[in-house]
């Protein structure tokens, strides 16, 4: 088990690099989640999301990955993007490799839940009429 890497960046995410970091010759399953900016939220149209992060967010992301790696015994990695993201942009890449698919699917879902619950990252949602709202507030 290990954390291949955990990164918070304002640059576009490289999903291939996240996947390559977790995959070994012993793995028969590679599950990757991409969190993508969508054009609606709770019935309202969305034009853009502005992500911001606490200065220690990367350490919290690493801790989230470590928690899932410890629970599952698998190798995990995640990258989270911050800054102004448009529809279709990828905000989160989380990847898990495992010998078999069932444990890889379960661990990847667990990893995304852990990241959303424990990493201090925030987003402000922009509507077509120019108003903004903080998500989850």
């Amino acid at each position, binding site marked *: 088990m290990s954390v291949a890497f955990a990164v918070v960046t304002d640059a576009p995410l490289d999903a291939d690099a996240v996947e390559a970091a977790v995959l070994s010759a012993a793995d028969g399953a590679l599950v990757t989640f991409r969190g993508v900016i969508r054009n609606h939220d709770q019935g309202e149209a969305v034009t853009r999301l502005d992500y911001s992060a606490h200065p220690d967010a990367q350490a919290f992301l690493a801790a989230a990955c470590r928690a899932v790696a410890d629970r599952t015994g698998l190798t995990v990695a995640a990258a989270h993007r911050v800054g102004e993201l448009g529809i279709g942009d990828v905000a989160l890449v989380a990847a898990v490799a495992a010998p078999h698919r069932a444990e890889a699917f379960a661990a990847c879902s667990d990893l995304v839940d852990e*990241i959303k619950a424990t990493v201090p990252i925030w987003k402000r949602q922009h509507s077509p009429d120019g108003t903004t709202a903080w998500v989850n507030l």
Partner: protein
Amino acid sequence: MADEVAVTVRYFAAAAEAAGRDEEVLEIEPTAAALRRVLAERYGAPMTRVLEVGSLLVDGVVTRDPDRPIRSKVDVLPPFAGG
């Protein structure tokens, strides 16, 4: 009641918007409950909402414990919305 001390308070995202600043030093009793009381008085409903649903970062630990002692530094964190 404990003595008041100088606490550096940092605000993030919706908390920074509610406070109109990113950081300040407050002379307060060093507990989470006292900080919440002072911030609610100073910044009103928007900050009260953040404090109700958010958390504090004290000594590297995210906490919602009102009795948590704080020392010289604390961060006010709105609810997380990563992913």
